[in-house]
């Protein structure tokens, strides 16, 4: 199984050399590699094998899979999907029940040590009953599936960082994949959902080079998450000029000014929306006039209001300040009155100084 190289597979489908080059060009662009890498990509693909992929869905909304599969025109992403062997995806596969689980076990056995595991959704630890598949807890299934995996791709913010299920108060005790998996490489592809191009870009990288791309400190591929939304935002010049939309329908908003004051989390969010855009590169949230929510960052649900500027504190600081004023007044008054007493005591203890009191005058006498 899967012993054919990708190039051979394409040839079988009647794809010409030019078609292959075009495919490589698109793939290089997809992986956000410089165009000068096209020959390298082509060379790598000539000998690349079709990997087996097991897709596990835990506490999730299927939005990530939708993002990827419902791209309304099957483009290069679709091509990539044709060229992996998706051996288990319980939402998509035809098989059900024991047969489905058998497919998973079979894929593990056949590709031991070489297959990829894609996870979307977080894993509940408070009570396994919150999410089970075929009577098996998510944690058990993850552990079992991971035994022979080459690497894990955590697709979506839920699997990458816990996401919505983990948001305060986190009733299910949801955790991310990376907090459980310590002995395998984990690639986080966060986003709610992630840009489909990014999901396929990461798969393409593994497919092409057989290795995982360079990751940042949060386990995200640097090629896609290396720069903040803010730094690549076309509205950035307005931020630098101090021109801000104050409401969603004011003159500033119409002129396309910066959305920072309307709560845009662009400065703290690392993602590729500003360049890759969404819906076949049609637009992206900021271009549509709404600030970035920061969906590719850990705990973005709990990072304060989506409509508050980033620098605004989230805590109940007015109450804290109120208590502080009251405490300050009480303590200050107490200290103040003690001081008055100290001073009054000093005044009471004062003895009138006369010139006769100087020891010099006493001696002279």
């Amino acid at each position, binding site marked *: 199984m899967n012993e054919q190289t990708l190039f051979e597979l394409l040839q079988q489908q009647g*794809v*010409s*050399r*030019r*078609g292959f*080059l*075009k*495919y490589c*060009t*698109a793939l290089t*662009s997809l992986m*956000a590699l*410089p*165009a*000068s890498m*096209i020959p390298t990509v082509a060379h790598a693909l000539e000998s690349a094998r079709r990997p087996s992929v097991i897709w596990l869905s835990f506490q999730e909304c299927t939005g990530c899979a939708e993002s990827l599969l419902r791209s*309304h*025109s*099957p*483009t*290069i992403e679709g*091509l990539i999907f044709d060229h992996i062997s998706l051996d288990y995806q319980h939402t998509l596969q035809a098989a059900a029940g024991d047969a489905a689980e058998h497919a998973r076990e079979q894929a593990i056995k056949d590709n031991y040590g070489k297959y990829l595991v894609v996870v979307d959704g977080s894993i509940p630890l408070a009570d396994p009953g919150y999410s089970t598949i075929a009577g098996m807890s998510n944690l058990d299934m993850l552990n079992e599936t991971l035994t022979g995996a080459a690497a894990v791709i955590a697709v979506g913010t839920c699997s990458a960082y816990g996401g919505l299920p983990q948001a305060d108060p986190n009733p299910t005790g949801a955790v991310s994949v990376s907090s459980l998996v310590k002995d395998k490489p984990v690639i986080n592809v966060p986003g709610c959902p992630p840009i489909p191009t990014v999901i396929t870009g990461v798969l393409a990288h593994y497919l092409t080079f057989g290795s995982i791309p360079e990751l940042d400190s949060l386990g995200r591929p640097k090629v896609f998450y290396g720069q903040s939304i803010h730094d*690549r*935002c*076309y*509205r*950035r*010049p307005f931020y630098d000029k101090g021109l801000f939309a104050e409401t969603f329908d004011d003159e500033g908003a*119409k*002129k*396309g000014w910066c959305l920072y004051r309307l709560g845009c989390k662009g400065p703290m969010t690392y993602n590729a929306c*500003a*360049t*890759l855009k969404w*819906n*076949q*590169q*049609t*637009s992206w949230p900021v*271009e549509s006039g709404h600030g970035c929510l920061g969906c590719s960052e850990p705990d973005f649900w709990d990072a304060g209001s989506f409509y508050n500027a980033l620098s605004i504190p989230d805590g109940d600081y007015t109450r804290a300040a109120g208590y502080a004023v009251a405490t300050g007044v009480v303590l200050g008054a107490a200290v103040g009155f003690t001081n008055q007493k100290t001073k009054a005591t000093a005044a009471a203890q004062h003895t009138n100084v006369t010139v006769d009191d100087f020891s010099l005058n006493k001696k002279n006498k």
Partner: protein
Amino acid sequence: MNNEAFSSLEGISVQVENPELETGNFQSILMEIKFSLEQLLEQKKSHIIDLRAMPWSPGEEHKLEKYLGKGEVHIELDALGKSTFYETSYSGIWVVTHYSEDGAVIAKAIEITYMPEMVFSQDEEIKDSLERFEKL
């Protein structure tokens, strides 16, 4: 469903409200092109600028294409969907667009070269042609 109609800004006739809005990429690309043209002449070295790898404000990319204009050569290729190659009004500067089989843009680049690599017949396939002729 007409996918092509929704595959680009021009397709849904968006009116750009603020044409002055610029990222500054327009100017920097012109600089990069100028530098690449010098390299092409002096060292015969081609260069590709991937237009997908940079942020654009609405309409800015279109402005660049308009600025470069269209030249004498226009090539269309049909492999895994359409691809168009045209030389701009500046010789040596090509705009290359790859479409998927459904007409969606999958890659777009400016190439500074004598002729985009992909247009040339490929050795592997010339060999294949030869084989087929030998069989005659």
